[in-house]
């Protein structure tokens, strides 16, 4: 448990620094943004309680907001993500025909590629839609919001999967 906690803290700092130093400078065509830090919240250990994951998500969101000049926007989206995540883990368990408790960690090597992509894709889509619509604030910019959501979801999803293969595949 202790080792898990340390791993988790290291990953938290790692994702955050990666966002500040690299990811936030990667944007394609003004519509695709890279919010790969969401990967941390997606792969949080499923055994932690819902309240804990809400607080972790809130902290991560606020830190990101601090560097994105957008108070509350990422925090709100992250908290929402943490709130619906358990339901999607339930779906994941149903798809892989195991009990929820048997999913020890959420990664490509634990659940397979397709399941992980579906799970991550859906949560990233929710998250990004909230971020971009809160940023737009008015419905006048709906089309732009939808474009940004679509392209950024793909960009982030690819990054999250790459991180899985780079950092979390060789162990075991």
């Amino acid at each position, binding site marked *: 448990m202790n080792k898990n906690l340390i791993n988790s803290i290291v990953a938290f700092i790692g994702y955050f620094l990666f966002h*500040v*130093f690299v990811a936030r*400078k990667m*944007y394609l065509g*003004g519509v695709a*943004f890279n919010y790969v830090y969401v990967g941390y919240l997606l792969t949080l250990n499923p055994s932690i*309680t*819902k*309240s804990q994951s*809400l*607080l972790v998500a*809130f902290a991560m*969101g*606020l830190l990101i*907001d*601090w*560097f*994105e*000049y*957008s*108070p*509350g*926007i990422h*925090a*709100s989206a992250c*908290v*929402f993500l943490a*709130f619906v995540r358990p339901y999607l883990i339930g779906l994941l368990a149903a798809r892989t025909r195991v009990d929820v408790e048997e999913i020890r960690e959420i990664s490509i090597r634990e659940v397979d590629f397709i399941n992980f992509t579906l799970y991550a894709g859906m949560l990233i889509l929710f998250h990004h839609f909230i971020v971009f619509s*809160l*940023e*737009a*604030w008015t419905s006048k*910019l709906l089309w*732009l919001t939808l474009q940004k959501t679509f392209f950024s979801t793909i960009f982030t999803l690819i990054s999250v999967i790459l991180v899985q293969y780079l950092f979390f595949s060789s162990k075991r």
Partner: protein
Amino acid sequence: MQAIFDFVYRFRATFLFLILQIICFLMIVRFNNYQKAYFLNTASAFSGKLNAWANEVNNYFHLREVNQALSEENARLNNELMRLKQSHFENLIPIRNEAIISKYQFEPAKVVNKTIHKLRNFITIEKGSANGIQKDMGVITSEGIVGRVIEVSEHYAVVSTILHNQSTFSVKVKLKNLQGEAYLSYIQWDSRNFRYTKLKDIPLSIPVAIGDTVVTSGYNVFFPEKIMVGVVERINPQKTSTFHDIDVRLSTDFNTLSYVYVVKNRLQQEQTEIEKDTTNIPRK
């Protein structure tokens, strides 16, 4: 009573979720209302330092562009200096009011963080209250206007740029068709492309032409008069409105922006105060 506690405890995660969302929502609303980086002060020491490091890393990849821009500006300033030296001796204008002659001072500052693709874009600069930077000072480059300072810490300041879909800036259009007569208007970004902004409030009866220059009006305290803003690039056909829909190509290149000047207006406080007094006159 016990039942209430049980209920709250049972749904503690949901309650926590609601509380956190309310906190976020309040922050967002305040941010939207006041158009400034309320609460999360990006100018603070920790984030400022981290931003400066991140910028350092990034700078290695843009050294060439930065050098280019700086040498171009050097050349331009040199030319200006020569010109001024000459004209100074040719026609000495007797201006007596020292305060007005040196009304503006320019403080150079390095950009350590910026966004250009959001709906509201900000930059962080590496100069703060220690260098005399204050809220509401204008920020320009040698090419054009950038924005105004909204948050200041000791060594950093956050600037709200003209790429902000809720901020407007007062400008003048020099109309070619009317022998360079100036028409007062304002610009507001439509949050689509960081190279363009929209010119507002110009009736269809005003003969704006492609290529007309847009400069600051000097009617706000942030900027000196006649700082370049951009050039009219497109006049979109208009059917339903009685105002022109005009795209202005910004002269400031936000993509390569790395050094800016903060405009210190020595008479800003005086002007703001005297203008504030007029708003207190009771209406009849």
